[in-house]
């Protein structure tokens, strides 16, 4: 009996210490009103991570963001379990209706890189759209296949099985990647299609940008599609992808900037923001797999005022944090579109 009491007191003491230590270490001025919770795209997570402390400095907002995939961002803001959702895929008409009065605002711009883990190549891998589509359709299964050899005559391609890695969660990066593949391969479009979650016929699935990067780092012969910031952070080599000019473009700032150079002068709807596989006029270095990332905000909510400030900051001052992470600042036309959409959010 005494032992039981003593042990219970010990446990209670531990919990008390944890609570006290927690209170002492907790961030000051974190009142409920300034706590903004968002979730969604892991693609944009590197940039949002940079924004969080900056916004705290600027407005005292306490932002919580968890990368759970674009689908979870859309679902979360629709169910109002979070204050804003982040998605690299625009909302369909059905999703927009279900969200009941949400605006979709582009707030970041970056590229989907194609990193790979093939040792001893002796140079950067070159791929093109149809080859990539065939890899993910399971029609090309080995790194020394003739189609790949044709694009990389000088490389040392091993007889190694290709493991295509895809996102098992609902992902805006998948949307971007499959949009590109559906554009360049009719077979891919009819067999797999373009969506945030598709039925890939072959390969290994992993959760989150982090997850697919993890599988590639551990599996020889693997390749995947992931935001270029993750490739950089994990020191992956990514492939050069053949664009309409015939050059093998890279997912750097120049590649991204050229890819969005053909946008209309005034952007009035999100459907005008299709930028995969840009035309020849875009530029020699235009990278074919570029995407905007969007924030989805309910126009009417208790947090509308704070979120409005956050989004405005993000599309203006926030953009300068992008380049080191290979997020290209929004083009002026898109920024103007963003301003018009932000105005629709109620609040101070």
């Amino acid at each position, binding site marked *: 009996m005494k032992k039981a009491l003593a042990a219970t007191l010990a446990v209670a003491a531990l919990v008390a210490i944890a609570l006290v230590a927690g209170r002492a270490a907790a961030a000051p001025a974190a009142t409920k009103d300034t706590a903004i919770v968002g979730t969604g795209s892991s693609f944009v997570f590197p940039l949002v991570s940079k924004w969080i402390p900056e916004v705290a400095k600027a407005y005292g907002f306490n932002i919580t963001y968890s990368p759970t995939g674009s*689908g979870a961002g859309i679902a*979360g803001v629709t169910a109002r379990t979070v204050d804003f959702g982040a998605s690299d895929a625009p909302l369909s008409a059905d999703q927009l209706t279900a969200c009941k009065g949400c605006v979709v605002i582009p707030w970041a711009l970056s590229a989907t890189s194609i990193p790979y883990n093939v040792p001893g190549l002796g140079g950067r891998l070159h791929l093109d759209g149809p080859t990539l589509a065939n890899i993910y359709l399971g029609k090309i299964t080995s790194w020394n296949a003739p189609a790949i050899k044709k694009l990389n005559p000088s490389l040392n391609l091993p007889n190694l099985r290709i493991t295509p890695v895809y996102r098992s969660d*609902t992902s805006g990066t998948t949307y971007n990647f499959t949009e590109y593949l559906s554009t360049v391969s009719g077979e891919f479009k009819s067999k797999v299609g373009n969506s945030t979650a598709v039925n890939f016929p072959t390969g290994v699935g*992993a959760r989150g940008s982090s997850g697919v990067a993890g599988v590639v780092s551990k599996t020889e012969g693997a390749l995947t599609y992931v935001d270029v910031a993750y490739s950089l952070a994990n020191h992956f080599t990514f492939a050069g992808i053949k664009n309409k000019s015939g050059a093998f473009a890279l997912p750097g700032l120049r590649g991204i900037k050229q890819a969005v150079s053909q946008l209309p002068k005034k952007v009035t709807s999100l459907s005008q923001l299709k930028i995969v596989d840009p035309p020849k006029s875009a530029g020699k270095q235009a990278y074919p797999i570029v995407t905007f990332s969007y924030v989805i905000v309910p126009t009417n909510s208790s947090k509308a005022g704070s979120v409005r400030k956050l989004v405005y900051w993000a599309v203006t001052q926030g953009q300068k944090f992008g380049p080191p992470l290979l997020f290209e600042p929004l083009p002026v036309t898109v920024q103007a579109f963003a301003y018009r959409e932000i105005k629709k959010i109620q609040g101070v």
Partner: protein
Amino acid sequence: MSTIDDTAAPAAGQAATGLERRRLRLGDTLFRGLALTASAGSVFLLGWIAYKVLDLAWPSIQHFGLSFVWTEAWDPVTEQFGALTFIYGTALTSLIALVIAVPISIGIALFLTEIAPKKVAAPIATMVELLAAIPSVVLGLWGILVFGPWIAEHLEPFLQDHLGFLPIFSGSPSQAGILPAALVLTIMIVPITSAICRELFLRVPRDLTDGALALGSTRWESIRGVTLTYAAPGIAAAVLLGLGRAFGEAIAVTQVIGGGNSINVSWFATGDTLASRIASQYQGATSQLQAGSILYLAAILMAISLVTNVAAQLIVRRFEKARRAA
């Protein structure tokens, strides 16, 4: 005597006054009511869980009906959903895990009860219990970073080299897939089933086994003929409980199974189980039908768990009844 509160109890031999009697009854009634509320609440909670799962799954149940259960499809683009891939994955990983785990568990239990001297048995029993205490997320972490790569680099090539003519060992070795998931489940099931088996074997009446030995059977023959036969229903129950545990495991499985979408004959291929698919896709379901379909998977999972659970309980109850009658 000193622990009894004298204000509540009238002195022995003295009748309680009306007021006192009412106060006593009130206390009893209130307390009984509280306990009853808690119990009724538990029953209500179980019913509510079942109701809510079905309610959230309704859009999909209505749309697909029962054919969902035997449809192999999971395509959010065309909104075609079916549970067959995941029922197959659940069944296959759990069965592989059972086939490996049950003999090992019986072996461990026999070792602890028959072979090992007490001094050795106690620490080993503790170690097996510790294996049960490892949280599944830690096993999954170990599975992703250590076990999976080992399976892909050593185990699967070995199986393919020696038994590659079997279609289940065809295909290319992979760190994520049915086999790694099944082996992780094996590690989870073994402690549970071996603990139950050990309890069962300890309860076998000594005179039965002594009798067998006196008749000239070897130790193993007495174990096989007496202990195992006597404990067979209990072992069956243990198997079912282990099965239930394997069915419901979402986290460790989703970490190592690779999120495959179709049924593959090879055990090296990726796949998915009911629980694992729910864990990886529920938060991201962006259409009513997809969310409903994932809950439909949850309803199937609940039904399967319920059946194995109830079956295990029935066996135990019949076992107890038979033994009490004997």
